[in-house]
Every structure is written in C-alpha cells, then in structure tokens.
C-alpha cells in the first residue's frame, strides 16, 4: 500500500531502539530524517516522567488500547477520552502517512516479536506452554484488539484507519493465517 523507500528499509526493519537510533544517525540530515527523529523521540520517551528507562511509549499505548478494548461499557466515557489522548500521542493525525504507516508496522512488529516466547499465551500459571498454533491465534487476537477491535468498540474507525491498516498488514506478513483471522475477528465483532 505504502511503498517503502530502500534507503529507509533498514530503519523500519530494525526493532531494537538503540540500533534504530544508530541507523538514523548514520543517515544524511534532511526533512525526512528530521521527521523520523521527531517520531523517534516521541516514541521512545517516557511521557509519564516516571523515571523509567528503555521505554517504548507507543508499544505501551498498544497494550493500553488492548486493555481498553476489553473494558466493559461502564467505562465508556473514560475509554473514549483515553483513546482520544492516545490518538494524539501516536500522531495519528499527522500528514506523513507513508512514514507513519511504516512506523506503526514497526510497533506491531515489535509486539509480534514477543509472541513466540515461551511464556506467551501459557496456561495454568505458566505450567502449560502454548503450542505454536495457540500462540499465533492469541497474537492475532491481541493485534486485532489493539487496532480493529478498539476502533470498532470506540467508533474511531476513521481516525484510526492508518493505524488499523498497518497492524493488519504486519499481522498478515507475520503468519499465513494472520489476514484471515483478523478479518474473521472483525466480522465476528460486527455481528
């Protein structure tokens, strides 16, 4: 959908923040790199100022979106307010669509990189590890909840369009069943 510039490919393919910064520093300074630096600083800084180190604020907000998706109707107003805040924080209104699309995919990719670990989707307090299929299904559900799911529940579908597309595409690339599962979850909720 949004072609990736060959020059920027290594930056967007890299998931480690320190390595990404090194790649960014090595690039000649122009408007695009300036913008990428702004996004980088926004993403990897502690917006709550709790003195935490190695923060991936956007990844944290993904997790928050997933939690908000699971929250009941009682917290509807609270949820809408928070989603609005997240939309602003994640620069979803920004005009650099192509760059933002790939940054969002990078966030989704970083989340998905944790979904093959031993503890992920385990049961009975970690005593029973999940099979690979179970992990993929759980990853699909997580990714859907933090994109399509929350957009549906909150009614912010239009504002979150780019975000949802990026997450969907990243999931489709992550596993063969990713695309189908995302669509299935989307349709199931719509019913």
């Amino acid at each position, binding site marked *: 959908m949004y072609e990736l510039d060959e020059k920027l490919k290594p930056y967007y393919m890299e998931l480690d923040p320190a390595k990404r910064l090194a790649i960014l520093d090595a690039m000649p300074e122009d408007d695009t790199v300036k913008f990428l630096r702004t996004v980088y600083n926004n993403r990897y800084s502690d917006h709550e100022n709790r003195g935490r180190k190695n*923060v991936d604020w956007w990844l944290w907000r993904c997790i*928050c979106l997933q939690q908000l998706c699971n929250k009941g109707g009682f917290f509807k107003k609270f949820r809408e307010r928070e989603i609005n805040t997240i939309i602003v924080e994640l620069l979803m209104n920004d005009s650099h669509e192509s760059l933002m699309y790939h940054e969002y995919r990078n966030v989704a990719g970083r989340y998905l990189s944790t979904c093959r670990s031993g*503890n992920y989707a*385990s049961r009975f*307090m*970690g*005593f029973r590890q999940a099979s690979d299929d179970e992990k993929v299904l759980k990853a699909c559900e997580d990714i859907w909840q933090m994109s399509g799911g929350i957009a549906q529940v909150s009614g912010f579908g239009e504002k979150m369009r780019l975000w949802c597309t990026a997450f969907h595409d990243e999931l489709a690339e992550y596993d063969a069943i990713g695309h189908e599962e995302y669509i299935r979850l989307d349709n199931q909720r719509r019913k």
Partner: protein
Amino acid sequence: MNENKFMSAFKANAIWLVFIAEIAIFYYFNPKFLSLPNIVSISRQVSYYGIASIGMTFVILIAGIDLSIASIIVLVNVVCAHLMMNMGWNMWIAIIVSIIMATLIGVLNGFMVATIGIPAIIATFASQTIFRGLSYILSGGLPIPDVLRYAPEAGLTGDPTLGFFARWSLNHWSLFPRQGIGLIPVCAIIMVICFAIGSFILNKSYFGRYFYAIGGNEEASELSGIRVNKMKYLIYALSGFFAGLAGIIVLSRTGSAQASSLVGFEFEVITCVVLGGVSVAGGIGHMSGVIAGVLIIGSLKSGMVMANVSEYTQMVVQGLVLAVAVGFDCFSKKRQAS
C-alpha cells in the same frame, strides 16, 4: 438493545445472576436464609475471604499464584496473639508489626518468583510450609486462647469489655449497637473499603494497567518499559499485606490463635477469585466479579450449614465448584481458540 448487546451484557453479569439464583434456591428450601441475622453472619464470614481474595486477584492477574496466604494468616494470628498475650505489647503495635511481617513475607515470595525465578506455585508452596511450621514452633503446637478477654489496650489492660478485640469481636463488631437498627459488622465495612481500594488500583491507577499488561504479555510489557520484576515484588507484597489484614480479622473473630487452623483456605480464596472471572492464564478479570465470587462462596457455605450438609460433603461441593470454575475458564479459552 440489540441481541448482541444483550448477550454481552448477560455474559458480563452472569456471575451476579448465579448469585441471585443461589440465594433464591437456598431461600426456597429455608426462608430463614434471608433473615437479617443470617445476612449479618454471612457478611462477617465472607469478610476475611474477601480481603484475602483482593491480593490473590492481583497475583492471578499476572498469571501467578500465592499458596502461602493461609499460612501467612495463621502466622499473623499466632504472632499477634503471642505479642499481646505473652509479651504484653500494645495491641495496635502488635497489629502493625504483624501486618508488616505479612507484607515482608509477600516480598520474600516476590524475591523467589521474580529474582530467583522459581515458579510461583513452588515458591509460595515452600513459603506455605515454612510459615506454617514457624507458627507451630512459636505456639508450641498449642492454641493461644482468650485473646478477646485479655487483649490489652492502651490504658485498659485486661479489661474484657473495653478492650479493642472485645468491643470489635464476633459478638460486638458492629458499627452500631447490636440492638440498634443498623447491623453492619465492622469487618464487612473493612472488606468493602479494601474492595474499593482494590478496584481503584485495578481501574484507575497505572499500577492496575501494569498488572493487566504483565498478565497479558510479560515480554511486551518489559519492552514497553514496565519494570516487571519490581511489579512482581509489589504484587506479592500486596498479597501478603491483604492476607495479614485478613489474619487480624480472623483473630478478632475467633479470639484464639491456632497453628493448625485454615488448612486449605488458599484454595477457597482461589475458588472465589476464579469463580469471579479472573482467568488463571492472567490478564483478564475484574474486581466486581471477585466480589460476586466471594458472596457466592460465602452464601454457599452458609446455605449448606443451614441445610445440615455435613462438613465432608461441603468440602466435596467446594472442590467441585473450583473444578467447574477453572474448567469453565479453560473451556471458554479453548472454544475461543478453535
């Protein structure tokens, strides 16, 4: 309301419907079940279950477990009674010291789980055995009786009627006089306050967010900047703290400390929490469900006593309820995945 919304509202509140159905059944067989004295009695009975289940909820939310809470409660009983009865400590200081000790045991559990990396079930089982044993050593295997009668209070040492435990005991723990119009046991009020605090932590504080996040995907939480190990320390410490508080309530109810009491209590608390919809896989659950779970178990116990069901049969029923609650959680997960 369309069908989908109705179904989701039904599912979200199903646990409360179970509670209402349970009450209706017990009321049908014995109308005294809904009498005021019995309701007050149930509220006293569930208070320590409720308080202990708050800490357990936090622990299960991060896909952990705390099998040591019964031993912590018993040790708090024994230590608090020992400090007051045998060492003549002021009651308030004894209570504070006991609760701090319970919290530190929670920190120890956190250390074993987070820093050493022992699976929670093994680490807390070890704690359970250690602190149950310590309770026996401290009490010499004998009960410490008459805590209510001799509990010293500042300036009122030995006065059985004015002592804190005497006034706030099983028979007198009421916000208003027993003969008065309002019969709200203070232990039930403490439980409600604790639930409000627990609910606030889960829904309104960033700690609650962290708990859910760690239970949902620990590695992603770590990458996002959450200090997972510190959170685990905090959660097990909170579990210890609430167990300690429950221990003080138990002591004030029974008036004696016994190292052999509350065997299997941790499983009853786990039943309350899982029945309330907190997933054993972690990351899913709400405090309101846990309140319903606590009330269901409390009513079930009371109803069975009123129906003259033997103690052994009660154990069978409680075991079945735990199996059904966990089984339902696993079944729904499996169905979701297929």
